[in-house]
């Protein structure tokens, strides 16, 4: 049986720029940063939660050929590559903090829903990041 999620990844166009956004703007912390030859194994994670790392992956050779790299880069910038969902205990406070740090690319400002309050923002490359403040859900799932 699989025990837990350990690493997930997000496609970025530039690792250094990604690190700046995810750490200095979004407020994550740097996880692993190891250079192996030309490859930089670079992760970020939720502060205080070292169990799950988000690997910042840049498409390119030798893993992807040039044509695939171009396709991936195009899809990333079109916002078509999925994204991440985080949980916070104060989504409106975080919204103000992100604005103060210069984040402007909001897809959705904080909005109340039956399961809590959430907002959504884009990273510099086009990935969607959703941030949720949960509350007890009264609505039961239908079968």
């Amino acid at each position, binding site marked *: 049986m699989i025990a837990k999620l350990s690493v997930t990844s997000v496609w970025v*166009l530039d690792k250094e720029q990604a690190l700046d956004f995810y750490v200095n703007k979004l407020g994550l912390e740097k996880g692993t940063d190891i250079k192996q030859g030309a490859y930089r194994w670079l992760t970020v994670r939720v502060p205080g939660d070292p169990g799950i790392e988000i690997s910042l992956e840049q498409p390119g050779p030798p893993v992807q050929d040039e044509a695939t790299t*171009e396709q991936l*880069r*195009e899809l990333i*910038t*079109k*916002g078509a590559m999925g994204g991440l*969902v985080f949980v916070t205990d104060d989504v409106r406070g975080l919204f103000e903090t992100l604005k103060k740090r210069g984040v402007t*690319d*909001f*897809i*959705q*400002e904080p*909005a109340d*829903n*039956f*399961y809590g309050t*959430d907002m*959504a923002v*884009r990273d*510099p*490359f*086009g990935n969607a990041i*959703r941030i*949720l403040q949960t509350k007890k859900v009264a*609505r*039961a*799932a*239908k079968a």
Partner: protein
Amino acid sequence: MSREVEEFNRRLLRARDAMDRAYAEPLNVRAVAAVAHISEAHFIRSFRAVFGETPHRYLQRRRVERSMFMLRDTDRSVTDICFDVGFTSRGTFSRMFREIVGESPSDYRVGHGPLVVPNCFQVAFTRPVVAAGVALQSSSFGDASEQAAP
């Protein structure tokens, strides 16, 4: 693909996000094009090339999706919902809703209750494809939309 194209895609996406964020406000295509820092005509053409539909259609589908959500989830009147989601005339709303969803807002409400999946999934996956097909593709915004189709 050149880095210019990537940067251009990203600007178009920023403009698309502005529509998702501010669908309830009286948007016009010039204001949304300004988010991408390009001219109106160029914006319409390139948005369609990159995302497969005109910005006007994108916005109308977003507004109709939000109205479907409110019809399912709230007791607000159809007229209130029409204005809540950014339409400025009840007639345009009903016509657009029927064109996109394939039935009237009232009929839709009767047949549908609240969904349990989180709103981000609803926003993404319950957004209607156009029931009437892609033939109707006007390119400006709001009530003036019926006139323009370059």
